[in-house]
């Protein structure tokens, strides 16, 4: 109790600190349901420096924009954390909607790089001083900013679901039959798609040219640009890496993504709150339970509901099973990338299969679980499933993790390909907002389940896995460590699972979400998965943003690869463990 009051006063001190330090530039955000501070754009860099260096908020987790159409403002929202743990400090800055210009925070927090590019791409917020402000998810030459509230997609029907055309007069038609392709597409002035030829990514290649001129002292080497992907078996999907090479050594690297982009966030703003739940499954489709978890937390925070005990335990069991299945897949895929073609992968997949059987029996689907509801879960564990989980957690999984460990950990090829490759120092990992296994393999013991506990994680006895070399090999080892810890958590949860209801109140399909903002984050298998939701009291969220770990972890990809050989890009990418459904959203 005293400890709590102590930290609380410390927070207050900080708050007063920030305001007394910048009385002109910083005002508390007084809108109802909002938290944090509003910072004037011209003082933003200064304030961010102060936050990072004086107040210890060294980890900028999420950067995103919100289009307040009715107020004519564009707002950029930053969520900063301390890497030693604790709650968020939210700060925001506003700019007029016609020409939103905000100073870039990349010089202070390099982890803002890809996220600011995303905000520019989708919302049209210009970040002054950003080193490489290009579109990232849409293609260069795309007209408009799709996340703006007045932007309409092809086949647009209405601003929010449910659409009126479905009931009571739902005379069916197919969109494809009704709308010819040309009708709903705006081309820029003077643009003719018939004669247009792509510019061969001139801007992209220009951005690569930041590296220094080659050293010509003994032998002149040309820099060669190599495109890996988008159709490359090592890229875990449609993902492209452009590398600048001198000989075999990487001197520049740019990730190119967005091939799977479907504007998940725009879809989310058309949906009602509940309708988003099955859509979150499709983000990181290997760990849909965790995605459900994060989104449920964000909306529950706004609604002010708490799930009953039994639901909390079931949630934790499901989230940890998801982590196990995800790490099995990640290790299998990493070994594939290292050239151990499919033997380790299939051994890992066997265990994953057993976990997916549990999901199928409980949620109804192996991967697209759609299992969490606001204030509970969709249904109770069916008969026999708890025994299955029990058997897995106490017998099968510990054994198979040991086998995987014995099979791979001391393998000389894994070590030769992994040790000292793709190193990310702890300082870099924090600066680049790396999350999850990537951050912890670099020696930063930051796990949200401990650093900023959510749900009932503070009741379980487990260790935060941490490794200190920050290389590919450690990122492999940390996943084995984490699986062991997950098994421990599941064992405790299964033992203590209480009886009782699984849903707070009556299940509702139209939930009432009061106006305000909230940020719910969970320690997903790939890192910090955050959902930033802004509600204006209507059935559809005004803003729905996903802080996708496999997207933001790519910010550090260039740094990890620099100076390594080209073949190592594959191993390093495998060790980050991305899923393109989440990267591209």
């Amino acid at each position, binding site marked *: 109790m005293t400890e709590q009051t102590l930290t609380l006063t410390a927070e207050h001190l900080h708050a007063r600190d920030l305001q007394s330090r910048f009385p002109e530039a910083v005002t508390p955000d007084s809108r109802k349901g909002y938290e944090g501070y509003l910072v004037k754009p011209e003082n933003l860099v200064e304030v961010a420096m102060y936050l990072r260096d004086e107040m210890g908020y060294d980890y900028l987790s999420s950067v995103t924009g919100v289009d307040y159409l009715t107020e004519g403002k564009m707002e950029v929202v930053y969520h900063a954390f301390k890497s030693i743990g604790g709650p968020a400090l939210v700060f925001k800055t506003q700019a007029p909607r016609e020409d939103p210009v905000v100073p870039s925070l990349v010089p202070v927090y390099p982890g803002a790089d890809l996220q600011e590019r995303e905000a520019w791409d989708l919302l049209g917020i210009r970040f002054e001083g950003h080193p490489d402000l290009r579109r990232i998810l849409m293609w260069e030459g795309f007209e408009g900013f799709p996340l703006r509230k007045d932007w309409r997609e092809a086949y647009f029907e209405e601003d929010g*679901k*449910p*659409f009126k*055309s*479905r*009931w*009571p*007069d*739902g*005379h*069916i038609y*197919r969109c494809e039959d009704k709308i010819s392709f040309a009708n709903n597409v705006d081309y820029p002035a003077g643009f003719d798609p018939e004669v247009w030829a792509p510019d061969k990514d001139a801007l992209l290649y220009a951005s690569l040219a930041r590296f220094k001129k080659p050293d010509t002292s003994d032998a002149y080497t040309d820099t060669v640009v190599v495109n890996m992907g988008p159709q490359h078996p090592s890229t875990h999907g449609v993902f492209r890496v452009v590398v600048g090479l001198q000989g075999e050594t990487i001197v520049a690297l740019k990730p190119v993504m967005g091939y799977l982009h479907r504007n998940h966030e725009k879809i989310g703003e058309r*949906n*009602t709150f*509940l*309708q*988003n*739940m*099955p*859509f979150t499954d499709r983000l990181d489709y290997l760990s849909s339970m965790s995605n459900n978890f994060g989104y449920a937390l964000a909306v529950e925070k706004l609604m002010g509901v708490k799930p009953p005990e039994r639901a909390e335990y079931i949630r934790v069991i499901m989230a940890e099973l998801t982590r196990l299945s995800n790490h099995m897949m990640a290790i299998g895929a990493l070994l594939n990338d290292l050239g151990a073609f499919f*033997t380790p992968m299939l*051994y890992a997949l*066997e265990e994953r*299969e*057993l976990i997916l*059987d549990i999901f*199928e*029996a*409980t*949620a*109804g*689907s192996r991967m*697209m679980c*759609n299992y969490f509801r606001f204030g509970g879960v*969709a*249904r109770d564990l*069916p*008969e026999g499933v708890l025994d*299955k989980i029990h*058997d*897995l957690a106490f*017998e*099968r999984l510990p054994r198979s993790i040991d*086998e995987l460990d*014995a*099979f*791979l*950990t*001391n*393998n*000389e*090829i*894994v*070590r*030769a390909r992994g040790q000292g490759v793709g190193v990310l120092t702890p300082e870099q990992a924090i600066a680049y907002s790396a999350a999850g296994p990537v951050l912890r393999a670099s020696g930063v013991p930051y796990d949200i389940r401990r650093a900023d506990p959510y749900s009932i994680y503070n009741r379980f006895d487990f260790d935060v896995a941490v490794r200190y070399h920050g290389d590919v090999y450690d990122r492999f080892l940390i996943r084995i460590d984490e699986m062991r810890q997950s098994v421990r958590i599941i064992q405790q949860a299964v033992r203590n699972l209480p009886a009782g209801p699984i849903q707070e109140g009556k*299940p509702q*399909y*139209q939930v009432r979400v009061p106006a305000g903002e909230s940020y719910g984050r969970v320690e997903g298998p790939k890192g910090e998965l955050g959902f930033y939701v802004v509600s204006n009291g209507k059935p559809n969220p005004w803003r729905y943003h996903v802080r996708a770990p496999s997207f933001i972890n790519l910010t550090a990809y260039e740094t990890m690869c620099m100076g390594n050989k080209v073949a190592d890009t594959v191993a390093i990418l495998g060790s980050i463990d991305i899923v393109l459904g989440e990267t591209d959203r």
Partner: protein
Amino acid sequence: MMDGKGILKGMGVTLMRFLGTYTADMSWWFKHNFSSRYYNKAGIENRMSKDARGIFTVQYPEEKLPVPEEFRFIPFLLYEEGENGEKKERCTSCGICAKVCPPQCIWIVRTSDPETGRPVPEPKEFYIDVDICMNCGLCAEYCPFDAIKMDHDYELSVYDRHARNIFDHEKLLKSVSYYASIRPANYAREEAARAEAEAAKAARKKPA
């Protein structure tokens, strides 16, 4: 310490796995009255259990994994079989499924009384665009009349999706007994709740 011991140990694991494919089959053979571990229910169940050793894969389509009761794939509409074989639909065309559907793939035309123009509780047309359906099961979860449920039949591939993947009223209707056969536990639970509600209703009527 790059002396190759790690590789040898790893190869030992693969060797044990390889030999395990034979020993698992053989021990099954002896324990189960010389019946095969493949192409029968007990064998498939063994391969899905925590004791699964050896060959894990299932020879689809000759073998099929049993689907659990909660498995969901494409909604269907329920009708009760009347005494003379007529179909009594449960759907009242209230439209909750169409409203809750995340990809908005349910289309309903409500019936109106031709004379008064007031709505009649049964659908005139009911379409589900199966190409768009994401199998989330929210329609079945929130239907107040237990009229729409998720199916178990997952083999739906067709050659012509434009013509055949919009399921109409006719195609969507399935009998309650079919539902009871694929989801016995859910069916029993719902029937019990219904009986309880009716009893409560009757009890409320009596004093008046």
